[in-house]
C-alpha cells in the first residue's frame, strides 16, 4: 500500500493551481500538436522543452506540462486521421484505416467520440500499470551495478534497432552517430578534450536540446518545403459533417473487449525498450483484426478498428514512461525527449529518482490521471474546436514552428553558434529521413552516450581493466542475451512482422 500512499501524496502535489493550469495548457496544446499533420508528440515536446526551460519552471511543473502535451498529442493524432485520412502523427497511422471510412459513411462524430473514449481507456489503465510496475522495476534496478547499466543501455539500442526499425544496419548506424556526437567535448573522467578540433564552443559538447530540436522540428520544415504544391498534408476538412458526438451504447459494448485487449498489448509494447506507441497501435490493430474480423469488416469503417489502435497507442504512451522513469532508459522517441528535459533540469531518472525525488515522480503520475480526465472532456464535446485548428494550412504553420524552434534554442544560450548547430542538425535530420535512417537512435545516442561510457569505464575501474567483468553477473548476462536476441531475431526470424507495417513517407514523427 506504499504505492497508493505515494500516489495520494502525488495528488497533493499535482492539485495546486499552477500545476492544474499547466496540465490544462499542456493537454490543450498537446491535442493541437497531435492533430496537426507535421507536428507530432516528439517534435512538439522538443520545441516546448527549451521554452519550459528558459521560463524557469521547476522540475515538477515542467514535467507535468510536457507529459500533458505528450498524452494530449496521443489523443490529437486521431482527429486528422479520421477526418482527413492523414495521420496527425505516426502512432495515429493505423487509425486512418477504419476511422476515415467511418467518417465517409457520415459517422465522423461517432468515430471521434469512440476513439476519444478508447484513448481514455488505454491511457487510464496504462497509467495504473505505470503506478504498479515502475516501483517493481525500481527494485530490480537497485541491484544494477555499472556493468549491468552498460548492458541495459546496449539492450535499449539493440531492441530499438531490432524490433522497431525496418533496416537494422541503419538503426545501428544511427545509434553510432548519436553516440559519436555525445563523445564531442571534454571527457568527464580525465578532463581531456575530444573531437573538439580546437573549437572552444565544442568543449561543453553538443547540447542535446539543440540536436533534438534540429533533428525533429527543423527537418520537418525541409520536408514540407520539398513537398510544396503536392496534395500531401494539405487536407480539406470543411466538407465533412461531424454528426452526433456520442457513440451509441451498443457500439461501446461491441468495442469494450477490443479496448481491453488493445490496452494490454499496447502497454506491453510501450514498456519494451525501443518500441513506442506506433508499434503499440500497430500490434493492437493487427491482433484485433486477426481475432475478431470474421466478416472482413476491418478497413471499411469497423468501430473496433478505430478503438483498437487508439487504445493501443495511448496505452503504449503510458507504458513507455515506465522504463524512462524507473531505469532512465526511454522506450520511445518522445520519452527520449522527456528524458532530455529531466537531464536538462539536472535530474537523473532511474531508480534513485523514486527515492531522491518522489515528489517529481508521483506528482507527475497524479498529473497524468488528472490530465487524462481533462483530455477526455476536451476531446469529446470540444472536438469541433480542434477540427477548426486543422484548417490552418502548413504554409503558415511551418514558418511559425521554425521560428519558435529558433526562439527556444536562442533563449537557452543566446548564442549564434548553437543556432548554426541546430540548422546543421535540421539538415542532417532531413537527409537521414530521406534515407530511411531512424532518428530516435540518434537522439538516444546523444542523450545516453556519456552515461554509457561512464558506466563502462566505472565497471572497468572496479575490475581493474578486466573486460570479462562486463559479463560477470547473471543479471548482466541476461541483459546481454536479451539485447542480442532482440537485435538478431528480427533479422533472422523474418521480416514478416515489421514489413507489414505500411511505409509512409511522412514518418516524420517517431512517437
Amino acid at each position: 500500500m506504499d504505492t497508493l500512499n505515494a500516489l495520494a501524496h502525488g495528488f497533493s502535489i499535482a492539485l495546486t493551481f499552477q500545476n492544474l493550469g499547466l496540465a490544462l495548457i499542456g493537454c490543450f496544446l498537446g491535442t493541437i500538436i497531435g492533430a496537426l499533420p507535421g507536428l507530432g508528440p516528439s517534435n512538439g515536446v522538443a520545441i516546448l522543452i527549451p521554452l519550459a526551460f528558459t521560463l524557469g519552471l521547476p522540475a515538477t511543473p515542467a514535467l507535468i506540462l510536457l507529459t500533458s502535451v505528450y498524452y494530449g498529442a496521443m489523443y490529437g493524432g486521431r482527429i486528422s486521421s479520421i477526418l482527413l485520412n492523414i495521420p496527425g502523427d505516426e502512432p495515429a497511422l493505423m487509425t486512418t484505416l477504419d476511422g476515415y471510412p467511418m467518417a465517409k459513411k457520415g459517422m465522423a462524430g461517432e468515430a471521434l467520440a469512440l476513439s476519444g473514449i478508447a484513448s481514455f481507456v488505454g491511457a487510464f489503465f496504462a497509467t495504473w500499470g505505470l503506478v504498479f510496475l515502475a516501483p517493481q522495476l525500481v527494485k530490480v534496478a537497485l541491484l544494477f551495478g555499472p556493468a549491468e547499466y552498460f548492458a541495459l543501455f546496449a539492450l535499449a539500442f539493440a531492441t530499438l534497432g531490432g524490433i522497431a526499425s525496418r533496416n537494422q544496419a541503419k538503426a545501428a548506424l544511427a545509434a553510432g552517430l548519436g553516440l559519436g556526437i555525445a563523445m564531442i567535448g571534454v571527457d568527464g573522467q580525465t578532463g581531456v578534450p575530444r573531437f573538439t578540433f580546437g573549437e572552444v564552443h565544442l568543449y561543453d559538447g553538443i547540447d542535446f536540446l539543440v540536436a533534438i530540436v534540429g533533428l525533429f522540428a527543423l527537418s520537418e520544415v525541409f520536408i514540407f518545403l520539398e513537398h510544396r504544391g503536392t496534395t500531401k498534408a494539405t487536407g480539406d476538412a470543411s466538407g465533412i459533417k461531424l454528426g452526433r458526438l456520442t457513440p451509441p451504447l451498443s457500439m461501446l459494448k461491441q468495442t469494450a473487449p477490443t479496448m481491453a485487449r488493445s490496452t494490454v498489448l499496447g502497454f506491453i509494447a510501450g514498456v519494451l525498450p525501443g518500441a513506442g506507441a506506433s508499434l503499440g497501435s500497430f500490434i493492437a490493430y493487427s491482433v484485433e483484426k486477426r481475432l475478431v474480423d470474421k466478416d472482413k469488416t476491418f478497413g471499411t469503417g469497423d468501430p473496433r478498428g478505430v478503438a483498437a489502435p487508439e487504445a493501443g497507442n495511448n496505452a503504449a504512451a503510458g507504458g513507455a514512461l515506465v522504463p524512462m522513469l524507473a531505469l532512465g532508459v526511454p522506450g520511445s522517441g518522445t520519452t527520449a525527449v522527456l528524458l532530455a528535459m529531466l537531464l536538462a533540469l539536472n535530474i537523473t531518472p532511474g531508480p534513485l529518482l523514486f527515492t531522491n525525488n518522489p515528489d517529481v515522480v508521483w506528482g507527475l503520475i497524479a498529473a497524468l490521471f488528472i490530465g487524462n480526465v481533462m483530455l477526455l472532456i476536451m476531446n469529446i464535446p470540444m472536438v469541433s474546436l480542434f477540427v477548426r485548428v486543422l484548417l490552418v494550412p502548413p504554409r503558415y504553420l511551418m514558418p511559425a514552428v521554425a521560428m519558435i524552434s529558433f526562439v527556444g534554442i536562442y533563449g537557452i544560450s543566446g548564442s549564434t553558434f548553437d543556432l548554426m548547430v541546430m540548422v546543421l542538425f535540421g539538415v542532417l535530420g532531413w537527409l537521414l529521413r530521406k534515407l530511411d535512417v531512424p532518428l530516435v537512435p540518434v537522439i538516444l545516442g546523444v542523450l545516453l552516450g556519456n552515461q554509457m561510457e561512464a558506466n563502462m569505464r566505472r565497471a572497468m575501474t572496479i575490475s581493474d581493466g578486466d573486460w570479462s567483468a562486463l559479463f560477470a553477473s547473471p543479471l548482466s548476462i541476461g541483459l546481454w542475451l536479451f539485447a542480442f536476441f532482440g537485435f538478431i531475431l528480427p533479422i533472422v526470424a523474418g521480416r514478416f512482422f515489421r514489413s507489414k507495417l505500411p511505409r509512409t513517407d511522412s514518418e516524420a514523427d517517431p512517437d
Partner: protein
Amino acid sequence: MSDRILGGLGLLLAIFFIWQATLIKESFISDPVGPKVFPIIIAVLVGLSSLAIFFKPDDEPEWPEFSRLFEVGLTIVVMIAYAYALPTAGFVVSTAVTAAYLSWRLGTPPVKAVIAGAAIAIGIYVVFHLILGLSLARGPWGF
C-alpha cells in the same frame, strides 16, 4: 545508389573518427580504459553498419528534382543568415523577414506571406516576450 553513398560516407566517418580518437591526448591521471577506447568501439560499430548498408542497400528514396534541392539549400542559407542577423537586427525584424520568406516558399502569395511573417514575428514577441517574459534577441531598436 543513395544507400551506397551513405555506406561509403559512414565508413569514411568511422575511419576519421578512429584517427581522431588516436590523437586524443591522454592526461597523466587516467582510468584503466582511458578516453580513447569507447569512441573507437563506436567507430567500429558505425563502420560495420556502414558496410552492411553498402552491400545491402534499400530501395532508392525519392529525391526531389534539382530545383527543389536548390530551394532547400537556399532555405538553409536563409536560416544561417537569420542566426547571424538576430543579434544585430533584433528579433522582430529578422524573424518577420525569415518567416515571410519561409511562408512564401511554402506556397503563400508574396503579399500575404509578408503579412504572415510580420504576424508570426509580432505574435511570438507578444506571447513569449511580453507575456511569458522570455528574453529575445535585442536589436538596435530594443526589440
